[in-house]
Every structure is written in C-alpha cells, then in structure tokens.
C-alpha cells in the first residue's frame, strides 16, 4: 500500500539516477570469473577461473572439467589475483562475454541464404548498409556495449594497460572502465567511504575507500583466505585421529553407508589414463569447499579460541556430521572452530608438516592486523569514519560467526570508537559484491562521463587507463 509501483510514465532515471546503456560488467577473480549485464542484481554467468587444457586447446566452464585423458586444469591468474596468462584470459573472457552472455542469434532470414531466390530489389539498399555493420560486428564483437572490469587494488600498471588493450582492440568496446574491487564492493554496500574487508578465495585484503577512491597506502593483503583455509583443513585431516582420506567425488563409483568413524566402504573408480594433479586438486577443492560451507565455523568468543576453557567448551557442544564422498563420516566438534582460528590468531593455525610455505601465518597476516595496518595508512581524521563503515565482502566471510568475531575483536581493539560492520545478508551479495557494485556503477547516469571512450584510447594509447582510472 505504502509503496506504489512506478507507472510507466515515471522513468526510473529520474528516481534513482540510473541510466542503462547496456554495459557489460566483468569481475575476474582467482577462483571464479563473473560476468553479466549492468543494472542487473546478479551476474548472469559465473564460471571458475580454472580452465581445462586438453590436446593443445583450452576449454572453459564448470561443466567441462571432467576426468579425461591428458586433461589439465589451469588458472589464468596467479595467487595474487593478477592475470598472468593473457592469452588464456582473453579467451576465457571472450567465452564469457560473447558465447555465454550473448548466445549466437540465428542469422536474419534475409541473410541466411535461404531466401536467395526472392526479388531483392527493395532490400538491396538496406542490405549493403547492414553488410557493413555485420563486418564491423564480426571484427569487433563487443562494439555495442561498454565494458566495466574490476581488478585487484594492487594490480600492476602493465596488467591494467593490457586489459584496456584487449577490450578496445580485440573486442572493440566503445567505452571501458577499470574499477578496483574494494571501491565497487563498497558501492554495492551503498557506501562511497568504507573500509572494505574482502576475504575471498585466494586473498584477504583490507582497503580503505574514500569518496569512491582507493587509498593506496591503506591497501593490505594476505593469503589468509579460502584456499589457505582449505589447506588448514587438509592439515587438520591429516593430523586427525584417525587420518581422514581426501577422496574427491569423481573418484567414487559406489559407496555403502558406514557407522560414524568407521572406515569407508566404497569402490573407487579407476581410470585407464593418469589423472593430472591439477585436476585432482581442483576436485579436492570442491570437496573442501563443501566442508567449509557446511562444517567450519568461526569461534565467536568470548575471548579467543585458544583462551583456556574455550576448547573444552567447544568440545562439549553438539558437533556437525560430515559425510565424505566415499561414505565415511565423522562428527566434527572443536576442530571446526580451530581450523578457522588462524585467521584471527596466528598461534592457533595448524602448522602443516609438509608444505610450510603456505600454511604459516605470520602475525601481520591475520585479519585484524590487516585492518590495523590499513587504518594506520590513512589520515587520522578518516579513521573513525572508516571504522564506522566497515564493509565485509568475499565468500570466505560467509563462514558462520565471521562477522560476530570481527565485531568482537574490533570492539576490543578500538574500545572508544563506534564500530559498524556492514555485511550483506544475502549469500550471493557477499559472493558477488564487487560485481554488483560494478553493475550499480556502470548503470548510473552520472558515470557516463567517466568512461574511457574509444576515441580517447586511440588518442592516448593504453596509458590512459593509468591516468583516468585512479
């Protein structure tokens, strides 16, 4: 009753300051790459940034990653979420933006050659014109849509220039913009000034955003994110008593229910060809993700998990059962807290026996020290405002209790200040925060003056991206 639907005569432009220009938004990350149309609330296409490589060609998408002979899984990014393999990146982005977002339309009847016998007198004039357009379109597949891309705040200048080069020259975008993830993530939360805590797949980063601009001195990042947590789980399983075998789903052909704690009773599949390590790792990651989603939790307090008495308390609480793909299952009680505790308390992290280069957490890598260091990199006058506008984004923050813990720790660290943690309630909004922000940004009417146009690119070269997208 109170909220009346807008009539068609009232254009949303005037109401919300939006002005759709059918822009595309591309948000590449280490674990997944998101793409969709600006103005929509969710990305249309989300595919893993991992792609298959078989017989010298690359195949993209989640569904093609299946066990095959000579199949390798690669990622076009490095662990810092910076594009490393530009050929693959171009191909995967093209696959996303062209094949997936804009599925091929059937050729118009006057072009498909089936109507050739008809008298074409009238259509000829038009036809010429269209032919030209068609050629243009063939050459420049994205000639109609401006493209907004996101990037990690620590992205190198070279990578940025490469990105605009691809979009302008290879795809022929009429306009381009490169936006840093924390900025758009804070836009998604409806804030122009915020301290963005982004704990994603490969990286955790804390960045201060002031009036829609990243403060470079505040950028802090550490690898304590989803993949690190997966490694913690691996280590925890290895050290568990009895040891838990990590058998990915694709290996299991057949399983029988067993008692909790009992060894698995399953028949594994055998393949006539060797399974690449990268493929197995990718599949294992799926399993670990499931474990993270359903079991792992963040200790909410009081105090840290390692404080005396807390572990015993956690042990006495009801746990969660997790069934492995091979049927073995177990109740997880205190471990599910301990596994994630390293994010907050470097002493609590599992020290992996073999691979010590990733499992180690130093003092400065915990999320709180990131926040602290980030705040120290900005002007004093901004700090209290930033603390009152903390935006939490990234899918690893979806761990149960993450926000509670963050709130508690911040309150202990800055007792006199007002602390407000803004975390989107919807899972998808937290996962695709940066994409959603990009979608909002590129559909704003006031944003259109910001785009780097083709003409500007032609005049200034790829260096313009450094000048404009600050």
């Amino acid at each position: 009753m109170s909220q009346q639907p807008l009539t068609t005569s009232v254009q949303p432009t005037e109401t919300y300051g939006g002005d759709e220009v059918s822009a595309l938004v591309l948000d590449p990350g280490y674990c997944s790459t998101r793409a969709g149309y600006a103005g929509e609330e969710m990305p249309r296409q989300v595919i893993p940034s991992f792609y298959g490589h078989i017989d010298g060609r690359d195949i993209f998408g989640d569904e093609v990653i299946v066990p095959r002979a000579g199949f390798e899984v690669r990622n076009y990014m490095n662990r810092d979420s910076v594009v490393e393999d530009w050929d693959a990146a171009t191909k995967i982005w093209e696959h996303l933006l062209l094949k997936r977002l804009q599925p091929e339309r059937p050729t118009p009847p006057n072009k498909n050659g089936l109507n050739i016998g008809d008298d074409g007198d009238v259509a000829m004039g038009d036809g010429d014109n269209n032919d030209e357009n068609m050629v243009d379109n063939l050459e420049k597949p994205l000639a109609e849509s401006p493209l907004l891309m996101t990037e990690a705040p620590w992205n190198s200048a070279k990578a940025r220039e490469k990105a605009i080069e691809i979009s302008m020259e290879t795809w022929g975008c009429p306009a381009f913009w490169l936006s840093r993830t924390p900025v758009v993530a804070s836009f998604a939360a409806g804030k122009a000034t915020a301290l963005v805590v982004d704990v994603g797949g490969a990286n955790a980063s804390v960045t201060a955003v002031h009036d829609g601009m990243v403060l470079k001195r505040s950028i802090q990042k550490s690898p304590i994110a989803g993949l690190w947590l997966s490694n913690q789980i691996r280590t925890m399983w290895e050290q568990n008593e009895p040891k838990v075998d990590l058998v990915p789903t694709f290996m299991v052909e057949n399983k029988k229910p067993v008692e909790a704690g009992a060894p698995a009773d399953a028949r594994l599949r055998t393949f006539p060809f060797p399974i690449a390590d990268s493929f197995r790792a990718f599949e294992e990651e799926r399993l670990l993700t499931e474990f993270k989603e359903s079991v792992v939790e963040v200790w909410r307090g009081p105090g840290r998990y390692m404080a005396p008495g807390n572990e015993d308390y956690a042990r006495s609480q009801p746990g969660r059962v997790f069934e492995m793909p091979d049927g073995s299952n177990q109740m997880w009680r205190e471990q599910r807290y301990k596994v994630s505790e390293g994010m907050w308390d470097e002493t609590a992290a599992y020290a992996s026996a073999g691979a010590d280069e990733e499992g180690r957490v130093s003092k400065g890598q915990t999320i709180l020290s990131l926040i602290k260091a980030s705040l120290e990199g900005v002007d004093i006058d901004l700090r209290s405002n930033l603390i009152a506008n903390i935006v939490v984004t990234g899918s690893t923050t979806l761990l149960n209790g993450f926000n509670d813990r963050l709130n508690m720790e911040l309150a202990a660290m800055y007792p006199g200040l007002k602390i407000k943690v803004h975390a989107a309630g919807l899972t998808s909004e937290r996962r695709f925060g940066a994409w959603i922000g990009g979608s909002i940004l590129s559909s704003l009417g006031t944003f259109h003056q910001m785009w780097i146009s083709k003409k500007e690119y032609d005049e200034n070269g790829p260096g313009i991206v450094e000048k404009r997208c600050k």
Partner: protein
Amino acid sequence: MASHDLRDVLNLPSDHSAGPRPSKKQKTGTPRPNLKGLAREVQNLGGDNPIAIVPEVSIFKKRRIASRKPVTKWELKAFTNSARADDGALVLRHWKRKSEAETPSESVEDRGSQQPDGMAVDGERDTDKVDDSAFAKFNVRVAVPQYNEDQYHRNLQHNDWTKEETDYLLGLAEDYDLRWAIIWDRYDFTPKTAEIETDSNVSTAVFKPRSMEDLKARYYEVAAKMMAVQKAAQYMTGPEFELYETMQNFNPDQELRRKKFALETMSRSKDEAREEESLLLEIKRIMARTERFNEERRELYNRLDYPSTDSDINSFKSSAGLQTLLQNLMNVDKSKKRKSIIVPGAEAATPTTAVPGSAVSETAPPNNTNNSTSNRRESIAASVPGGGHRDSTAGTPATPVEPAAPNAANKKKGAAPPERRKLTEQEETIYGLMHHERLGSGPTFRYEKINKLYSHKSGQQQLRITNALAELDVPPRLAMPTAAVTAQFELLWAAVTSLVDLRKVCDKLDGEIKIEEAKKAERDKARGISGGDVKDKEQSGGKTKPGATSTSGEGRPGTKRPASSGGGDKLAAPRPSSSGTHKRSASVLSSTSDKSSKRQKK
C-alpha cells in the same frame, strides 16, 4: 391505541413516555442504508442498531479502465554526455520513452536552430539528433588557483617548494577535487629535473615525504596569494574575504597537534570514553544551570532594591508618614516588577522615569507623587538611589547586574541625571548615533565649519594651505561633505596647518642660521686678517644687514604665532628654558639672533 394517542386527542401535555414514538416515526422516515443482498425483514431484525453482518459482494474486480491511447513506445536513443572531455565522441544508447507530444515541438525547435540546412525530414533528424545526457549538469569541478611563470616568481617563491612540485600539487588537487586524504595518499612526487641538477640541496628538499599539513599549507598559501593577486583584499566580498582569511590563517602546527590529540582519543579505553562523555554532559548541565541561576539572582536583586532602613524613621511615625511610606513602597514595587519584566535597557526609554532633578522619579512616576508630602518623600528618595543596592551587590561583582551601573553613577553625581544605558561604540555606529558640539539654531552646513577654519587664518597662510591641499588633489571646498568626510578633512586640515606652521618656523631658523654663519665667517676673516680690514668687516656687516633684518622681521611674528596656534609651538619656543636637544639648538639660535638684532639696533 396507546395512551399518548389519547393524550394527543385530548391535547394533554405528553409525559416522558411520549418521546420515543415520534422519533420512531422519524427514523422510519429516514432512508436506511440499503444493504444489498439482505432481505428487508432480516435487516429490520436489528431494529435501531444496524446488524453487524457485512454482506458478501459477489462482484468481480472492476475492470481496469483501459486507456484508449496506443501502447507507449520505447526507442533506443543515442545520447552523448557533454561533461565528457572527448567532445561527444562517445555515443551511448539507452531506452527512452517515445513521447508523441514532444516530438513535434522538438522538431519545431530543430527547424529553428537548423535553419541553414533545414532540408532534412523530421523523422530522419529525430534519429540523427543526439541529445545530451541529463546527468551532464552534475559534473562540477573545483576551481584550483592558476598562475603563470611570472606570477609564480613574483609571489609564490618558497624555499622548500620548487615550482615543479607546486604544479604537481595543484594538479593533484584538481584531479582529486581537493580531497586531501586522497591527495596525500597519492602524493608521489619525483622531480624530473632533480637528476640533472647537481645541487644536492634541491634534491634533498624535494625528496622528503610531505605530510598532509605540508601539502595543505602550501596549497592554501598559493591559493590565498593568487586570490590576493587577482583581487586585492579590500575589494573582496564578504565570503571571499572569509575564505581568504581562513586560508591565510591555516596553521599546520595546530593541525598536527589536533591530529595527535585525535589519535590519542582513538586509543582511549571504553571507560575513558564513557567518562569523558559523562563529563561533557555534566558541563553542559552546569552551564545551563548557571544561566538559570544568574537569571534568578538578578531577579532577586531587583526585588531587594528597596530603600534602606538606616535613615531617620521619625518622619514615618505619624499616620500620614506611614501612608506616604506605603505609597512609596508600592510605587517602588510596581516599577521594580515592571523592570524585571521589561528589558533593563528599555527602561531608559520610558519617559516616565526620565524626569530630571528628582531622584524618586527613577522609580516612581511623577503623577503619583503626592504634593503635600513632597518634602518628606524627598527625604526617603534621597536614600533610594544610595541604598538601592545593598552590600551584597558589591560583594558579587562577577555577576552582571545591569541596572547596578547606572544607579551607582547616580549615586556619584547626586541625583541629577536620570539613568541611561550607555551604548557601546559598536551599537552607536549601528544606530547611527553621533556626538557633536552644540549647533546653532537654523540649518547649518558642514562646509561652513570648514570655511570657519579658514577665516581664522591670515591670508598668506590661507594661500599656503590651499596650495598644500591642491598638491594633494583635495579641493578646498568638499564636493560631498558627509560627516565622515568632514571629520577626515578636519584632520587633514589640522595636519596641513601644522605643517605650514612648521615650515614657517623652519624657514625662519634657516635664515637665522645663515646669518650667524655669515657673521661667523666674517668674524673669522677679521681675526685672520688681524683686525686689518675693519672697513671690509663693516661692509660685510652692512651687506648682511638687510638680509638679517628681513629674516628676523619675518621670524618675529612667526615665533609668536606658533605659541598661540599650538601646533608647532614646541619647536618654535623662543625661551631657552625648554629641554631637549632639538629645542636647545633652536633656542640657542634664536638667542644669538636676538643678539644680532640688538647689535643691528645699535
């Protein structure tokens, strides 16, 4: 047939039971809300009270009134954004409602604007025409001070900042719209010329990291100076000058101290924060309370403003005396009460209190005075202003008791002037209040006053003064003699006259010095020749005579006059009794001149 019908026939007054009947009739007469789908009988069951059954209406939702208008069409329209820097090279397209009403008028406008090549068909032009984004108007940029090379070298030199770096700073300020947090964050100045330059001082000065205060201080310095260059401070408008002043008064040290303090408040604990908050609250409360307390105290003092009792009470012993006293007290009370209500400053304006000569008039209106008891009353009244304020008033000087000051003044002067609030200087200018000497009757002109000044002077002096004024481009008669102008002119005139006087004295002294020097030369000559040439001496004396007499003759009245005119009398004091080197020399000279004149007389 009921009883009331009977009464009706018999014309008997109806008793109370008659009431309901006619009203019932009335009720049946009024149309009842006709509920549909309900039998009348059922409806009547309820009697007076309508039944609370809402009948179900089995009608379908009303059909939407379909508009006869055709479906609104939307079109993919190209547009540009004039806020962009690339002159409309980027043409984006968005969906716009195609409005029938707008198109014709637009095309008319088009025709008007595109008169020279207005050959194209309307429809075509509609598609060709690229309109500007509605959001372009939101593009607002800050104005950063501009300067050229020359201006920089003249005004903006700074030994800690090179021009290159200043340019860089201003460029950043423009890029980031003066968001200092970002400017400071992105500030990364690496001079291009520093490697070439061999001067190590420059490079060290340049490479040191700048704090935000440094950047702000430099920017404000540049901005303020350029503002002053473009428009002198006295011609700036109010807000401009305010901005100019704030930029000029930017104090980086104070900012730094503030930030340090802010940092400390950030690291305080929860208890401290709470304590501070409660203290602030307490202060606020105290402040509010003191205000009220002061108000109450003032009220109390006003009430306490009664005649003291230490005067002679014999006059009140008779009943008539008591009557007077009562009257007096009541009057005093009345006026006091009124006083507490009206603003203390306003009472001076009430005419009743402004009767001079009688002290009672301060408190009592004159028409209330009783003639027969006037001398007695005066005896009380004499004590009124004196005892009006008890010792307690004097004991609390901190509290501003407004009526106290005039009353005290009254006490000092006796009872003569009625109390009057003194205006501060500022208020005087606001109300345009002026003080000047008594004016004669009839209209007076301000320039007459100046003419009067002239008339006191001798003709020669008048001439000299006018000459001096002409030198200053000031007309002798003012074109626009406003009060301020005449006042200034008087000052100027006084200065000019004193200057003229001084020059006269100076001339005189010069002449005397010349004479004495000539004399001395003569004397030396005579001594050198060893008294040989007396004739010569006499001749030279004779030669000097006319000059000497002329100077002394001119000097005499000069020495007299300054003493009377008062401007330059110190310098020209003829008596040697005065002290000070300058004066002494003058007096010595004058005494010698006296001697010379005496000799001449001989």
